[in-house]
């Protein structure tokens, strides 16, 4: 903002005031266009014309600021008047509401007052400020170039090529240690190996989620659906990997009439009397699949609406998932409890790069 004379031409929006010409590209600039008529005469507000109105506006604004004061004091009082009583939801609500209303008034009063003051009492005429080109003036730019040249000459930055390039090389490599430093964000296992195993193994009982009560085959009626975990999982605490194991091991168990199941030859003995167990972890991006439509035997994932057909090995019939839900081979033990024959035969959950390795 060095020069403050108005160099702006008052006419068209495109007339250039600087001698420098800047290309206007394919813009159409016609000599025949209208002239900017210039600022119209200001209109006067009631508060400019009538002192009584002005005093009234002032009183109104004073009241708004007082309203704010009252609101803020009310908020402080509300903090004590409406405390939270343990176990009482209503007290929480009242505390939230009253405190909030007090603060709201405290803020609104100031805000409305200030805006009102600006609109009805402050000098209301529009003012004009000239704009200048954003780029520095020619003199400033020339001086900037000169400074760079001088710095270059004094340091030999472009002259001493090897020295400069060595510096650049060093600067590029210097942050790289940070990359290896992040390796220990996680322990040293092969992560994709972990994704291939769950808690299920031969003989693990199928148990209710979350109680861990084992399930007898005779308790599973046709048409029912059970949310299942490995029996041993219920004994784990959060500190011993409960959530991590559960995130892989949860299973849905349904009973259909045996003739409704279209089972592949090699999986005929994975079910027990129409009872089938499938991983509950969606093969899309891993939400728990849990909406079961009894009539159609379809499972629906609530996250992105993938649908799986239980009668056909949970193949995908709709939605963004690409693979069927993995099946858990099951049978019953000597006491009639449902047990796993083995772990899943493939990784559960979302696909990953090394999945088929």
């Amino acid at each position, binding site marked *: 903002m060095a020069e403050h004379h108005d160099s702006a031409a008052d006419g068209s929006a495109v007339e250039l005031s600087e001698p420098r010409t800047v290309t206007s590209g394919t813009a159409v600039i016609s000599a025949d266009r209208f002239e900017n008529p210039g600022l119209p005469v200001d209109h006067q507000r009631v508060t400019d014309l009538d002192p009584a109105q002005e005093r009234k506006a002032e009183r109104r604004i004073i009241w708004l600021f007082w309203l704010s004061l009252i609101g803020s004091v009310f908020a402080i009082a509300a903090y004590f008047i409406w405390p939270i009583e343990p176990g009482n939801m209503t007290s929480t609500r009242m505390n939230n509401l009253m405190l909030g209303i007090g603060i709201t008034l405290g803020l609104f009063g100031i805000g409305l007052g200030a805006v009102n003051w600006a609109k009805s009492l402050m000098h209301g005429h529009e003012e004009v400020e000239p704009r200048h080109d954003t780029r520095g003036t020619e003199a400033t730019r020339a001086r900037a170039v000169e400074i760079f040249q001088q710095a270059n000459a004094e340091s030999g930055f472009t002259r001493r090529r090897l020295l400069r390039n060595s510096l650049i090389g060093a600067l590029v490599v210097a942050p790289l240690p940070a990359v290896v430093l992040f390796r220990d964000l*996680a322990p040293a296992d092969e992560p994709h190996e972990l994704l291939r195993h769950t808690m299920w193994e031969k003989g693990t009982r199928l148990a209710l989620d979350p109680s861990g009560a084992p399930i007898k085959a005779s308790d599973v009626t046709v048409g029912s659906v059970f949310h299942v975990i490995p029996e041993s999982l219920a004994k784990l605490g959060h500190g011993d990997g409960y959530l991590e194991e559960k995130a892989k091991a*949860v299973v849905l168990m349904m009973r259909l009439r045996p003739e409704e199941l279209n089972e592949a030859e090699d999986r005929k003995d994975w079910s027990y009397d129409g009872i089938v167990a499938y991983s509950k972890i969606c093969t899309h991006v891993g939400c728990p699949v849990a909406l079961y439509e009894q009539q159609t035997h379809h499972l629906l994932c609530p996250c992105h609406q993938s649908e799986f057909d239980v009668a056909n090995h949970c193949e995908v019939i709709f939605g963004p998932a690409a693979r069927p839900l993995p099946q858990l081979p099951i049978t019953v033990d000597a006491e009639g409890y449902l047990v796993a024959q083995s772990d899943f035969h493939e990784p559960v959950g979302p696909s990953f790069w090394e999945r088929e390795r």
Partner: protein
Amino acid sequence: MSTATTDTVTKPGPGMRFTSAAANYIDERTSASGFVRELGRKIFPDHWSFMLGEVALYSFVAILLSGTFLTFFFDPSMTATHYQGSYVPLKGVEMSVAYASTLDISFDIRGGLLMRQVHHWAALLFVASIGLHMLRVFFTGAFRKPREINWVIGFVLFILAMAEGFTGYSLPDDLLSGNGLRIIDGMVKGMPVIGVWISYLLFGGEFPGHDIVPRLYVLHIMLLPAILIALIGVHMLLLIVNKHTQFAAPGRTNQNVVGSPILPVFAAKAGGFFFIVFGAIVLIASVFTINPIWNYGPYDPSPVSAGTQPDWYIGFADGALRLVPPHWEFVFLGYTWSMNILIPILVIMVFLVLVTFYPFIEAWITGDKREHHMAERPRNAPTRTAIGAAGVTFYGVMWAGASSDLMATHFMLTIEGVIVALQISLILGPIAAYIITKRVCLALQKKDREIALHGFETGRIVRLPGGEYIEVHEPLNEYDRWRLVAHETYRPLMIRPNERGRITVGQRVRAGLSRWFFEDRIEPVTRSELERAHHHE
């Protein structure tokens, strides 16, 4: 123009003496008077749409204040604990300390719930106002030279705001936040080559692990806010350097700014508006519950709650995932390629990149190197406005995708039907929006020309002596006319050989784009056209 504002001379009272002594003290140590001279009477033009950016700024302040309060009580640890607080239904339940401390903020700290809700509502408003602000800038062409850099910064702010929102949403470690993380985990695992490793490093082992919440916490309250604040600072600095755009009006030119000075009018309006925005956020927070984490329970990989929605600004990404048709995955060279995840991510990336670089693309097409300080009316740039409408539609369809299940249950449709309809709309919708918007813009421009030439229709019919009926038109005064004729148009680019007599591919592409942009154009009324029109009457 700048008339003096002091009409009464006030005798210096004790308050005034203190103020001037303090001002003197500060200036002698900081030369702050220079700032006041440069900025104190800086002019800000007024238009309602210019407030959108202000709303974003003010809700960010509300976020900072409420967020800082929350940090005093929130404990981002995933260590297991048995809840002993005041919320009876969860007493004794095993959960993470993070979830327990969020319950404590909600039920054992007076005003804690209010601050949580202020924080969350302000976050929603923050992202929404940035989005609307961006749309305003886009549709008025305010991103043109010299403001391209500020467009890019603003867009980065939008992305960072979403990142802040997502990391914040994940902190309480409730059922929904954990489920959101699970989806992220699944998407990360789908990335080629590095997916499993990235997930593993991110979660510090297998999902969910014990590290993700504290890690996100550092991002949420330190790294991301620091970047946000720095970028907002640069954004404001460039705003001061570039000054505000203004809509065409009498007396407003490309070489001036017309409006109110910072001191006192703009400061009072903007400062007051800050309190109004903050007050509105507190009001909403005290009346409407948001994210009642106590209803969801602690994170557990097994339960689900159908019909729950992510925060609105994540919706478009969620919807993009939903719109993928089945079976988009294959095994190639022994590795699994999860196209059902890669394609939507890629589509979103391309979309974001196009938005980021739009100002440069348009500048290249027009070849216009001048500075532009006049905000354009959307109708006067029909192709840009149509592109914007197509982009908004594309985003809107993805966003609608996130509510496909709700739409199906509400309108008694099948979920498959809704998804297929949205898949079709994702492709046809933007095309339709483009065509319709362009036609509407051109029609509005024609209408503007009519009015500029012949004035407003008054609805008054008179019978001429010759017996014919005409409608009386009220001619425009020159001030009203100026708003209709102030803009300029561009011609399509002619392909010309360069110095070496060749026509480059770049030239051809540019000419093609230029034709697409400017082939249909309606030029503003000129003086001689108006004269001719008057002669005819």
